[in-house]
């Protein structure tokens, strides 16, 4: 946002004063908005193939099981929009799953202490990732790759490859249970509630000074530093949020799936794919936090759609890969188009001054586009 050129400023102002529907249309044409269209399309396709999926009780369960990856995608978003990568996410999930399994066992009284320990561990991993990346100037790709291997090795050393077993049911309820006997929905899984909380928190955070700063740092760290932001601390906090979101995802997965050393495997790449599918630009500085979550939902819907289509098992991964590449290619194309559109809009006099600009929206738009 801070990089918005003077010549573009008046266009931005005009765009913000456009009618609500016009703004919506414009948003949908960005990759961050297009992912919602893609998501609706995929969900519609699933419901056509299998109408029972559209029933509220089935659908809310689908949202529940997608919550962990959506939360991970939100965490990964902070790191990516700040211009870095977090490849250690999957290993953090695995580590936390094993920690829960091995430390809680069947002892209900240990649920809370271990939960606190897991959050501290998650924050610590993120802190280490962040400090090594920012203060020692090691590329985050390497730091988090190293962290990924180190944590996986630690898990193998600690467990001998197999966990002791699932932790107490009271702990698993967080990821497996829900509020029962809800009208219409039948059940509201706890993961849905947690996802909603994380999404709202992420949304609010990106509108606060920290969020603005993070996007500025991702867009141009030198400029952000000159403008007085402590780049290292902004990015380190992003890493900590990423590891913490992986921890929350891990807590939900222990409940949903149970303890197994393969839980969390490949999570970092699924999360990065979801973030990119949500139109967030690798390299930072552009993208919307809720689009990252929508990207995760689109990805999960795609897997479900392929399941329902009865695609041959040996082919499924290939089809998934091809579709993801096409979707991301299309997204990057529309960013390019959008950029051209933005600069030409500066000279476009047809915009109506319909509504007064509300500061919050104005700054959000400015941060999101350019």
């Amino acid at each position: 946002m801070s990089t918005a050129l003077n010549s573009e400023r008046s266009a931005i102002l005009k765009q913000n004063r456009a009618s609500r529907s016009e703004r919506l249309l414009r948003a949908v044409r960005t990759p961050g908005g297009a992912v919602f269209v893609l998501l609706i399309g995929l969900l519609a396709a699933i419901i056509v193939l299998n109408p029972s999926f559209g029933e509220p009780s089935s659908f809310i369960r689908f949202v529940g099981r997608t919550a962990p990856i959506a939360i991970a995608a939100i965490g990964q978003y902070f790191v990516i929009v700040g211009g870095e990568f977090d490849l250690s996410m999957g290993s953090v999930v695995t580590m936390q799953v094993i920690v829960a399994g091995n430390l809680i066992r069947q002892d209900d009284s240990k649920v809370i202490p271990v939960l606190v320990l897991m959050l501290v561990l998650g924050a610590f991993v993120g802190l280490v990732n962040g400090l090594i990346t920012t203060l020692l100037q090691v590329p985050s790709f390497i730091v988090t790759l190293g962290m990924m291997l180190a944590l996986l090795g630690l898990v193998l050393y600690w467990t001998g490859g197999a966990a002791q077993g699932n932790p107490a049911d009271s702990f698993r309820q967080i990821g497996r249970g829900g509020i029962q006997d809800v009208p219409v929905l039948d059940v509201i899984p706890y993961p849905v509630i947690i996802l909603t909380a994380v999404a709202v928190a992420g949304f609010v955070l990106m509108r606060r000074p920290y969020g603005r700063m993070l996007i500025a740092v991702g867009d141009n760290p030198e400029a952000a530093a000159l403008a007085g932001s402590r780049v290292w601390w902004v990015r380190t906090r992003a890493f900590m949020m990423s590891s913490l979101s992986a921890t929350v995802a891990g807590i939900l997965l222990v409940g949903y799936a149970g303890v197994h050393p393969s839980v969390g495997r490949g999570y970092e790449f699924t999360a990065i794919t979801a973030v990119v599918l949500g139109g967030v630009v690798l390299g930072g500085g552009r993208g919307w936090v809720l689009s990252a979550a929508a990207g995760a939902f689109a990805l999960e819907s795609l897997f479900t759609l392929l399941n329902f289509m009865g695609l041959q098992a040996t082919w499924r991964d290939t089809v998934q890969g091809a579709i993801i590449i096409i979707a991301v290619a299309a997204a990057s194309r529309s960013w390019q188009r959008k950029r051209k559109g933005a600069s030409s809009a500066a000279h476009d006099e047809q915009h109506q001054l319909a509504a007064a600009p509300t500061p919050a929206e104005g700054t959000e738009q400015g941060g999101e586009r350019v």
Partner: protein
Amino acid sequence: MRNNSVRAIALAAALPLVALTACTTEPSVTQTTGTGTGSAAASSPASKDWFDQALYDTQNQQRSATFEGNPEQPYLQYIAGPMTDTSKFKSPGAHKVCFANASISNPWRQTGWITMNQQLKALQGTGVISEMETRDAKDNDNTQIADIDYFIAEGKCDAFVISPNSTAALTQAVERACQTGKPVVVFDRGVETDCATTFIHPIGGFAWGIDTATFLSERLQSGDKVVALRILPGVDVLEHRWAAAKKIFEEKGIQAKDYFTGADPTKIKNIISDELATGDVKGVWMDAGDGAVAALEAFEDAGKKLPVMTGEDEMSFLTKWKQTGIDAMAPVYSNFQWRTPLLALEKIFKGEQIPTEWVLPQKPILANELDDWLQRNQGMPSGHYAKFGGEDLPGYPEVWQKRQMP
């Protein structure tokens, strides 16, 4: 126009993925139990048929074969057949063993690896083996070939134990080991040469497939749906299990739909939830029991009737089976085979005859034996295998309970 070209590029970029899929199936040629050929490698992956009627028939018969030896020591039992004379290897004293291991990347291999090391301790105690040098190939053919060549070049091995990563790729390396004139013991997956002193393995994947698919089809009606959860494609011992089961399901008119899960319980649960959303699932078949609990939990969470199921002798499945009281069986890919190579070497150094192809028993756990096996493995972790066969070894049970690996 440019949009089209982007799509074309995207598709072109996806092509190597297809090629990669092909590669993963390439190295794992049909496992022959010493007699067949690896002709399947020549066919394309898409049309590749893992089914081998001759092998199917052999293993079907071996299911009911009588095994020589003491049933209390199944790891020493074998089906009568050609024997190898090992008198030329007879030598006193302690020997150094070199072990080229494919990997310890799954709970089954880890459990076996623990058992093998405790067996090693026992044999070190009796002065048969001085030390065992192990190189772990981490599931990589090239690494394992290099490992074997390293052992040969080092020239300090009195015997080789090889657990091949894949069949065709390791054949020549095993032949090179044989040429050193030292005893060579191959176990688990096979190679396409009979130069080894002995090849140790349980009956095989077809027997597993026959046991499990027969169990399910006896309990289900024609037209019922079975979800088949498979770990990964292209590994012969796993593909044989599915090839046999698929044939039987097709014959009995059971609708079997297969998925690859990578043993990830999250994936398994998603798959079952999706299948339950499209209609009733009457049975669950697994090519390995890892993740069986997640499959059953998916039924519980959806509030559906629990299926008829086949898992494996992994503790997590046996425990869940007991808790839920489902109609199930646990096929066994005898984990105790990890002891046998070292015991075979003991016999070889004594100059005793041993089976050229050492077919170990592979007996599934049925409902009436469930309590017994749970009792015998009390306190073991969820990834432990009930038929690990190491109850008489030093360190039992703590070493297995804590999964202590060197």
